């Protein structure tokens, strides 16, 4: 039987995910999951905006951390993008973006403590790596023609400013604005490790069962993100960027002794620190690999593959919701609302909520990852189908879906999916902090036990795993000749 390469790769991933399901723990362990879910939705339906004065401060801090972090990341990323053609720079950027914001935050917390710098750097560092890559891709696309016409003797700065920047200005701006939205999500979840942003208050309300309070926070967060075009104006940007550092809060002062100790003692593998030999180091390392790293890698891979396929299935189910080729305006509007909520909620918050309701297993994580990523890709694919013109006598209903639309968008669907593969894995690892046995779980436990040497090795392994998946995803996309834009 002849199968097209795209179909073959899809079936392969489907089979892997089904096999992974047999090894994965996907039980619902709470006694009354549906009642809790009902109470949560009731809370969202009856939001309480005035219960705590902390809410306004939390929102302000969330915005402030996002602005400072993204602005710093964008500036550093831009500088890095200018030298991105050098191989060591590429490796460096791949490495810093392979480590999730929350991992960075966990690292900085150990020596900066609850200082605003922790939150700012946790966003700025991985974002620098992402900005450097995408900016350099955008700048490479600029038309080289005008630069060749300049009089000989024109300086490189003038050449760059006149012929490269104006040509890509719109793309640079669009991408940076998109990243600002991501930055708001990142900033919100930093609260889960104790920084004074939205996640902190969300966790507090949830753990006390104050669902109306939690609902109010979520609603305000959606409003904040949905109204970005209204309150983020080019003219106001300098005001925001210069003003934001003053709204980060004071936190705790940095104890520089801790910083020195962290680098000179804490992260040195224990056997070396205690002056034991190389055999001890070998035993330490193999113990770490066998008891933590390998189980963590295994679970991370299982969850990633299941979540990837679940995302794909959800995308294919969800894109008709906003497609012009089906249904009426009412269905499409509610479809838009569903997809906006799905993609605006950080997967970490979704997973946290579902975990509270269903108990710890991989199921909440799979659903959270599928909802968030399916929301993003479903939105993009749905919008793409709206540009398709069908012949007047094209079939309707399911036949239109399966014969006319899916075949037309399937390649870009796969492109987006493989693009997000690495992102899904990065999130999967981090969800371990919530108690699922992925790499993040072992990182978090090691930190709780104040064994930073082990935590650092595990974070390093996570980063390498991400880089590996990124390379594999890019290889598959190139092999299948799948094109995608960076804003996804």
């Amino acid at each position: 039987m002849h199968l097209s390469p795209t179909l073959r790769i899809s079936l392969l991933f489907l089979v892997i995910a089904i096999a992974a399901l047999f090894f994965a723990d996907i039980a619902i362990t709470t006694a009354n999951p549906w009642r809790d879910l009902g109470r949560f939705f009731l809370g969202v339906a009856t939001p309480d905006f005035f219960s705590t004065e902390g809410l306004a401060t939390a929102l302000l801090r969330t915005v402030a951390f996002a602005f400072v972090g993204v602005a710093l990341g964008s500036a550093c990323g831009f500088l890095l993008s200018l030298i991105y053609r050098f191989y060591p720079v590429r490796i460096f950027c791949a490495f810093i973006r392979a480590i999730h914001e929350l991992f960075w935050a966990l690292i900085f917390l150990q020596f900066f403590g609850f200082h605003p710098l922790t939150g700012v750097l946790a966003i700025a560092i991985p974002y620098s790596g992402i900005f450097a890559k995408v900016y350099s891709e955008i700048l490479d696309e600029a038309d080289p023609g005008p630069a060749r016409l300049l009089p000989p003797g024109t300086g490189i700065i003038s050449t760059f400013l006149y012929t490269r920047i104006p040509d890509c200005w719109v793309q640079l701006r669009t991408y940076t604005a998109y990243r600002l939205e991501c930055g708001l999500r990142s900033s919100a979840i930093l609260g889960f490790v104790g920084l004074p942003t939205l996640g902190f208050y969300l966790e507090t309300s949830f753990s006390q069962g104050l669902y109306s309070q939690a609902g109010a926070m979520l609603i305000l967060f959606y409003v904040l993100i949905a109204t970005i075009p209204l309150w983020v104006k080019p003219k106001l940007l300098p005001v925001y960027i210069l003003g934001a550092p003053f709204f980060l809060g004071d936190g705790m002062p940095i104890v520089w002794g801790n910083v020195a100790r962290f680098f000179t003692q804490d992260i040195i593998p224990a056997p070396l620190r205690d002056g034991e030999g190389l055999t001890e180091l070998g035993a330490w390392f193999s113990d770490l690999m066998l008891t933590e790293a390998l189980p963590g890698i295994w679970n991370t891979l299982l969850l990633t593959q299941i979540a990837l396929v679940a995302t794909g299935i959800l995308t294919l189910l969800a894109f008709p919701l906003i497609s012009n080729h089906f249904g009426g305006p009412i269905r499409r509007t509610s479809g838009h609302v569903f997809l906006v909520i799905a993609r605006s909620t950080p997967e970490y918050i979704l997973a946290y909520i579902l975990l509270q309701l269903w108990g710890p297993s991989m199921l909440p994580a799979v659903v959270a990852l599928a909802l968030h990523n399916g929301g993003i890709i479903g939105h993009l694919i749905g919008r793409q189908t709206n540009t398709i013109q069908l012949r007047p006598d094209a079939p309707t209903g399911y036949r239109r879906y399966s014969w006319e639309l899916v075949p037309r968008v399937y390649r870009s669907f796969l492109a987006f999916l493989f693009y997000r593969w690495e992102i899904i894995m990065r999130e999967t690892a981090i969800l371990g902090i919530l108690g699922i046995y992925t790499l993040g779980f072992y990182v978090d436990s090691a930190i709780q036990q104040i064994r930073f040497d082990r935590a650092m090795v595990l974070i390093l392994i996570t980063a390498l795993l991400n880089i590996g998946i990124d390379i594999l995803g890019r290889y598959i996309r190139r092999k299948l000749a799948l094109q995608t834009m960076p804003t996804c």
Partner: protein
Amino acid sequence: MSGFELSGLTASFDGERVLGPLSLDVREGERVALVGKSGAGKSTLIKLIHDRVDGHASLVPQDLGLVNGLPVFHNVFMGQLDAHPAWYNTVTLVRPFRKDKEAVKSLLRELGMVDKFWTPAASLSGGQRQRVAVARAIYRNANLLLADEPISALDGPLAHLVMKALSQRFATSVIALHDVEIALAYATRIVGIQDGQIALDESSDRLSAADIMPLY
């Protein structure tokens, strides 16, 4: 340097020779019109000359080379980026100096485009874009003009306006032209290109349109 003596000019595309080998000497004060069928090698010859004089010429390429994101003023100002330090050019990007604005404005007035001073190049029509590229070449103020079909998108009166402005500014020039009448009217020497070779090289006052037609 305004004239040039070039020999051994050749160009290949995909391993197939499309131009030359040929030699071309242009003396100071000569206005050369390159004529010939499209695909004969005129554009290639213009590009080759531009390379061989190391960019020391005002160039109007066929694709114009405008920066779409910048307004007309900046696209013209780019002709003199080498005349100012980087800080001056950077400030100009945000807030141009009065004397540069005046200079560019009077040039655009001459080309009938002063109302488009701040219009982004992306939203100009084909003929307007062509005049911006011409204005940039004039503002560049090199001793030699190389232009590839600079009036292909302009109708009668505007075509003459541009050709007049170019002949006033540049004593020495090599311009590829489609329009034989215009070539005879503005050039001092006609060079006809056919199959990558020079098939005709004659002073323009000794030629008529009928002499050139066999090239097409």
